């Protein structure tokens, strides 16, 4: 065991002397997590600027404008008055407004007549949410008018004489829709970009360590170092154990550093200390197993490099390190759970959004199970090769 520790310490010293390993393990993940955190800082808050053009000035139009400027919407919506449609279009072009609501002339009078006039939303295709909010707010108001109109028509169709039309119209004015939305708290924290991409980028960069380590094993083989070690009373397994330990420590230190730096500097959430640390350790164990698999399967330095690269990129792509996996179609989300990094990201996502610390148990167990399975496969391949 001591020999394995010595080999691990030597490998780590070698790795930390190599600038590219330092860049991959520490500088790059922090830089990329920072970049993502800054890039998306404006996306996580929302405010719509909607221009309103009132060509009607009637009673219902005024009530609609009042509804738009109500206190309950002031946090989401700022209304900007525009004199005419041309000015509103200019405001959208200049970015002064994200959308515009046009109240046509004659709107109030027609709203209670047989041929109502519709409202128009002028939209910028790059600001679909602003147009959607403008449309939905206007819709919420006209729905009550539409409900009143439908109520009168239904009553008339049910047999109430047309002569009582005015009486019906007056009666529906006081009605309120029988169903309304009741916003409930979700009870969880919003997943921020920093909280997802910090672990995603950290895992991405430690996966590159598979290539480094496997390659170094073959380089030592080529340069005769392994042969010379063989002269000592050491087995190849001890050398591999030492190298595996080095990968493990490198991965834990890299992910741990990123966790601390991204939490302090970019407000990324990695969850409570113990389960987050367990996930980091479990993911690092998988990394060790994957490295031994590459060493077992490859015959040359070049092959090791090739296998490691392919494994790394396939895992990164399927596991969701490049894309926010929750936005992906269900089939891709299921595929992600075939990968260790997919499970690690699920664990970190759960912890970041406030799930109980026990939510990390399943991902940790699955990661350790995957590590054991990959390790067993590596052992089988090695045995098969040696016979």
């Amino acid at each position, binding site marked *: 065991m001591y020999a394995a520790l010595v080999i691990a310490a030597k490998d780590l010293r070698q790795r930390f002397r190599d600038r590219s390993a330092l860049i991959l393990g520490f500088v790059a993940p922090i830089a990329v997590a920072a970049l993502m955190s800054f*890039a998306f800082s404006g996306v996580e808050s*929302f405010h719509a600027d909607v221009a309103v053009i009132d060509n009607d000035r009637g009673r219902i139009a005024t009530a609609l404008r009042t509804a738009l400027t109500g206190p309950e919407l002031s946090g989401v919506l700022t209304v900007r008055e525009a004199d005419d449609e041309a000015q509103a279009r200019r405001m959208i072009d200049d970015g002064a407004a994200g959308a515009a609501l046009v109240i046509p002339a004659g709107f109030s009078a027609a709203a209670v007549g047989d041929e109502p006039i519709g409202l128009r939303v002028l*939209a910028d295709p790059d600001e679909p949410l602003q147009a959607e909010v403008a449309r939905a707010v206007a819709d919420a108001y006209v729905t009550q008018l539409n409900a009143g109109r439908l109520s009168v028509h239904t009553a008339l169709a*049910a047999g109430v004489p047309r002569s009582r039309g005015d009486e019906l119209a007056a009666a529906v004015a006081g009605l309120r*829709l029988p169903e309304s939305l009741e916003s409930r708290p979700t009870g969880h924290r919003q997943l921020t970009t920093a909280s997802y991409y910090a672990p995603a980028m950290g895992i991405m*960069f430690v996966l590159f360590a598979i290539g480094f380590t496997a390659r170094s094993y073959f380089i030592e083989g080529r340069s005769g170092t392994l042969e010379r070690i063989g002269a000592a009373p050491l087995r190849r397994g001890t050398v591999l154990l030492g190298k595996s330990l080095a990968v493990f420590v490198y991965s834990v230190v890299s992910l741990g550093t990123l966790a601390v730096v991204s939490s302090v500097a970019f407000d990324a959430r990695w969850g409570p200390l113990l389960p987050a640390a367990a996930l980091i350790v479990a993911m690092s164990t998988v990394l060790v197993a994957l490295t031994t698999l590459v060493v077992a399967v490859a015959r040359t330095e070049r092959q090791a490099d090739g296998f490691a690269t*392919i494994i790394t990129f396939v895992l990164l792509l399927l596991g969701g390190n490049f894309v926010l996996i929750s936005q992906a179609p269900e089939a891709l989300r299921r595929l992600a759970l075939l990968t260790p990094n997919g499970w690690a990201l699920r664990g970190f996502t759960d912890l970041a959004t406030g799930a109980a610390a026990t939510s990390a148990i399943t991902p940790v167990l699955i990661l350790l199970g995957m590590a054991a399975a990959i390790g067993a496969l590596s052992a089988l391949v090695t045995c098969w090769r040696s016979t």
Partner: protein
Amino acid sequence: MRTAFAVAGASLRRIVRDRTAVFFIVVLPVVIMVVIGAVVQNPGGFRIGVLAGSTSSRPLAASLVEELAAVGPLHTMTAESDARTALRRGELDAVVLVPAGLDTALLAGDPVGIPVLAGGAESTQAAVRSAIAAAVARHAERIQAAAFAARTTGSTTAQQLPTATALQRATPRIGISTENVVTGSDYLPLGYSYSAPTMLVLFVFINALAGGAAIVQTRQLGIYQRAQAAPIRVRSVVLGETLCYLIFSLLQSVLIVAVGAVLFGVSWGDPLAAVVLIGTWAVVGTGAGMLSGAVFKTPDQASAIGPVIGIAFAMLGGCMWPLAIVPDAVRTLGHITPHAWAVDAWITVLSRDGGVADIAGNLAVLAAFALGMLTLASAVLQRRLTS
């Protein structure tokens, strides 16, 4: 010139024979294009989870669920805990809890609150609530109408519901139409039309950078020195390598364009503009590859640090997400990379129907980037080969 062609041919053969390189050049860009294309494809609307229980004996609950289908793809769920977990992980935008006593309460004339849990960013929450409110209001409209008609005629709401439902479809209502007033978009189209051009920009650059490892290796092996023993000028060797990278970048571009167009139906816009842009970007890739080969000291550095630089530049330059969503400072910073200029040009070609004249500025900047990198690379390489 014949020497330059011979050098280019030898280098190209070496790249093509390397299976790892083939994975990077052929398989990886296509797979990434598919994954990112699938994730950014917008199926339309919001992803809504609905907990309605059994609706077989509850026609009003069933019709509310039908109305909600207009908001976006519906996921009917049975356990609230599952729905909340999916919402927390961002797999759903909102969860609607249809109350068990909805039919009884509405038919009895009692107002009902529909509990809604909205997740995601603040912007999504505001928009998804508005969209659900509009669907619920449309449902409530006919309940109000049926109840009103029932009260005025002495019948029951249940009796009047079919009439209200039929009239809702037939009666003119105050509608809201949306009109896009800005002709071009600052975003690339969604789906594969987004991932294909951005992955072209990303991979041509990244593979050229990583491919610099071949030049470093040739340098280390002393092949250039040996070549100089023959009557070959250093300039011819440098030109040969440049040609190799240019052909390599062009081949990869053609592959991505063909796969995008044939398999995923991607439109590449004005053919002339697309060809000029692809050609210019291939020259930028050539410059990056040559610079990587000249500057890095070991092949490991080129193949390890190259992709990191490539990914970071791609993120800054808008290949991973649109620069239109990032803060101004990040957008300005992004334009220190050639990627941002190339992606801007693709936006002009694909989203604004731009031609060569419209992207002339971007092409000039890209050409300047390419010229700068090529000049620097040639100077460094010539110095290294002659010293």
